[in-house]
């Protein structure tokens, strides 16, 4: 049975202006909790043939393009990939950085907006947090893929062994491993904690196997004062503690490059430059995902309104400007410094055979958002936001490609210059991880409530229309 819209008792519409405000803001358009529960449960449990076709195709792509080709590469050797002297870090590492960057927005959107009490976050924090977990899962595969002989991965684990092998804790690569592990574990917990009340709701609304699973995951949640207090405390600890972890992860990823004396990499600005790029691509990816959820899942148009795209559009525009600021800082000072090797790399970026990638980066990351996102009407049109943010992510991928293989190909020794071209196994594996992300995300939309209903209800309770002079304006009450 489809859920119907029924205003809460007492929320009588008083005029066209108030009606417009309710249509505009989710927080001013409350519905009974039971109805919202039903909407979220229907979105989670109702599937169409198109869903099963999509998930099957994605599963097949993951099996063939990712795992099949990875096995082929492992059996044949890394020679099937395009990495060779002078470029030993190719599209695998570029995609690794891309996925780690994508994963930043989940925490950014959820934790930072939670700390600053940005109300528009409420309906989509979970969608963003889920993106973090699966973005990291996709990214974390790349060090293994890039390793070649993946079966000896355990040689890097610090335990006393007869091989006399021990990781060097002063190496940026070990820092990277630790940072990603910390972030993956903590962001998964951060996804889980606010989910507990919604899992209890799902437990009360389901039967059979689903109910058994939710019963285990909900940890016997009843919603007592002590449980809410404990949960609020834990979420607050996480919201504050996960922010420095988030910043550390991409900073350390940037140090993978910056600690080397490679021309254009040995830069003190790389940390914040990577962070800003990560947040730009991550927030853009959140917009893409919200558009898909809104278009494909039941009742999501109630929760994900144009105001969400509007607010995220402003964030994307601000981060595009910040990214440009860091890019120019990096570019201009390197150019001004006059180091021959670095100038040569800059020249190669702008005029070499891969120059189109560099220009694509500038067009997608600067020109497109600056020309479009100042416009409120565009920001409030979900499909336009989807196109713009997709292009921004294309631009951010081009940025990572420019920084890694295109920079490595023209280093300090001219006789060792070369051009990297990714081979088909590399492209296949990259496509495979994109399919893996979509597969996992799609599957999870049918397993967990995608909207934190209790947070939305809390927002409904905190918001009201207040009469000021001749008009009524939305106002927020501090409940905690």
């Amino acid at each position, binding site marked *: 049975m489809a859920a119907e819209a029924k205003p*809460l008792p*007492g929320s009588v519409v008083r005029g066209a202006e108030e009606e417009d405000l309710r249509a505009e803001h989710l927080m001013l358009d409350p519905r*009974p*909790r*039971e109805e919202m*529960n039903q909407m979220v449960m229907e979105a989670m449990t109702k599937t169409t043939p198109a869903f099963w076709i999509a998930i099957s195709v994605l599963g097949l792509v993951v099996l063939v393009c990712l795992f099949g080709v990875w096995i082929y590469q492992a059996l044949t050797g890394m020679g099937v990939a395009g990495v060779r002297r002078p470029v030993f870090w190719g599209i695998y590492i570029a995609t690794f950085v891309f996925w780690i960057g994508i994963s930043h927005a989940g925490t950014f959107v959820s934790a930072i907006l939670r700390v600053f009490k940005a109300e528009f976050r409420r309906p989509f924090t979970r969608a963003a947090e889920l993106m973090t977990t699966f973005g990291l899962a996709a990214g974390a595969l790349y060090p293994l893929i890039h390793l070649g002989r993946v079966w000896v991965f355990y040689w890097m684990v*610090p335990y*006393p062994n007869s091989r*006399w092998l*021990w990781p*060097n*804790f*002063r190496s940026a690569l*070990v*820092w990277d491993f*630790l*940072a990603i*592990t*910390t972030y993956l*574990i*903590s962001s998964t*917990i*951060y996804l889980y*904690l606010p989910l507990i*009340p919604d899992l*209890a*709701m799902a437990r*009360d*609304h389901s039967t059979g196997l689903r109910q*058994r699973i939710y*019963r*285990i995951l909900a*940890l*016997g*949640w*009843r*919603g*007592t*004062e*002590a449980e*809410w*207090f*404990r*949960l*609020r*405390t*834990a979420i607050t*600890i*996480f919201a504050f*503690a*996960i922010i*420095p*972890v988030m910043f*550390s992860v991409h900073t*350390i990823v940037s140090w993978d490059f910056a600690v080397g004396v490679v021309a254009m990499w040995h830069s003190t600005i790389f940390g914040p430059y990577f962070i800003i790029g990560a947040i730009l691509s991550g927030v853009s990816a959140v917009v893409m995902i919200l558009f898909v959820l809104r278009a494909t899942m039941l009742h999501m148009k109630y929760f994900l309104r144009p105001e969400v795209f509007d607010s995220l559009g402003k964030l994307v525009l601000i981060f595009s400007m910040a990214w440009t600021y860091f890019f120019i800082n990096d570019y201009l000072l390197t150019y001004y410094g006059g180091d021959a090797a670095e100038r040569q790399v800059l020249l190669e970026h702008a005029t070499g055979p891969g120059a189109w990638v560099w220009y694509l980066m500038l067009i997608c990351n600067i020109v497109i958002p600056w020309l479009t996102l100042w416009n409120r009407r565009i920001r409030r049109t979900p499909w336009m936001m989807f196109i713009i943010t997709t292009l921004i992510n294309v631009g951010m991928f081009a940025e990572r490609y420019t920084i890694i293989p295109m920079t490595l190909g023209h280093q300090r020794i001219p006789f060792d210059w070369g051009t990297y071209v990714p081979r088909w196994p590399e492209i296949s594996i990259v496509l495979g991880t994109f399919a893996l992300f979509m597969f996992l995300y799609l599957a999870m939309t049918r397993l967990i409530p995608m909207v934190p209903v*209790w947070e939305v*209800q*809390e927002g409904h*309770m905190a918001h009201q229309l207040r009469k000021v002079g001749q008009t009524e304006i939305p106002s927020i009450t501090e409940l*905690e």
Partner: protein
Amino acid sequence: MANGTVRLALFREDQLNQAAEAITRLHEMGIEDEDISVISGMALSERILGRPMSWSHVPLIAIAGAVAGFLIAFFLVFGTQYLYPIRVGAMPNTPVPTSLVVLFEITMLGMLVSTLLGVIAEMLTPSYGPAGYDPRISHGHIGVLYTSPTNLDNQVRSRLSELGAVIVERPEVKKLWP
């Protein structure tokens, strides 16, 4: 109160003020805070309902986890260098600046993982006070769970019913967790 009657007074989500008033009435009838528990589908702060502040060990467990993480990290970056020394050119064996990263990451990991463990431990350990549940709570209802002396049962019920509460006779917790 060891041998009282456990009841659950359910209020609709738009009857929050009535739920707060119900707690006041329970106090007036001599029912202590320790015999009252509020169950809700969303977080309601203690001051909204006039309830005493809750207490949790989660922050302490988080701090303990952070200390444990720091000690583990300290052992990995400094201790193991004496057990399995790795010589790196132009760098001392136990440099502080490069160790800060590992110290930070593992300390944070210890803190965040122990926060979750603290939540799980507190959720699964038995709690004092009346226990009860009704699935209508997750529909947004606010439940005031109380234990009243048997001789006051009818009086309490009628005073709460005046406020619009639906009284659940046997609010036993069904099997909510395996």
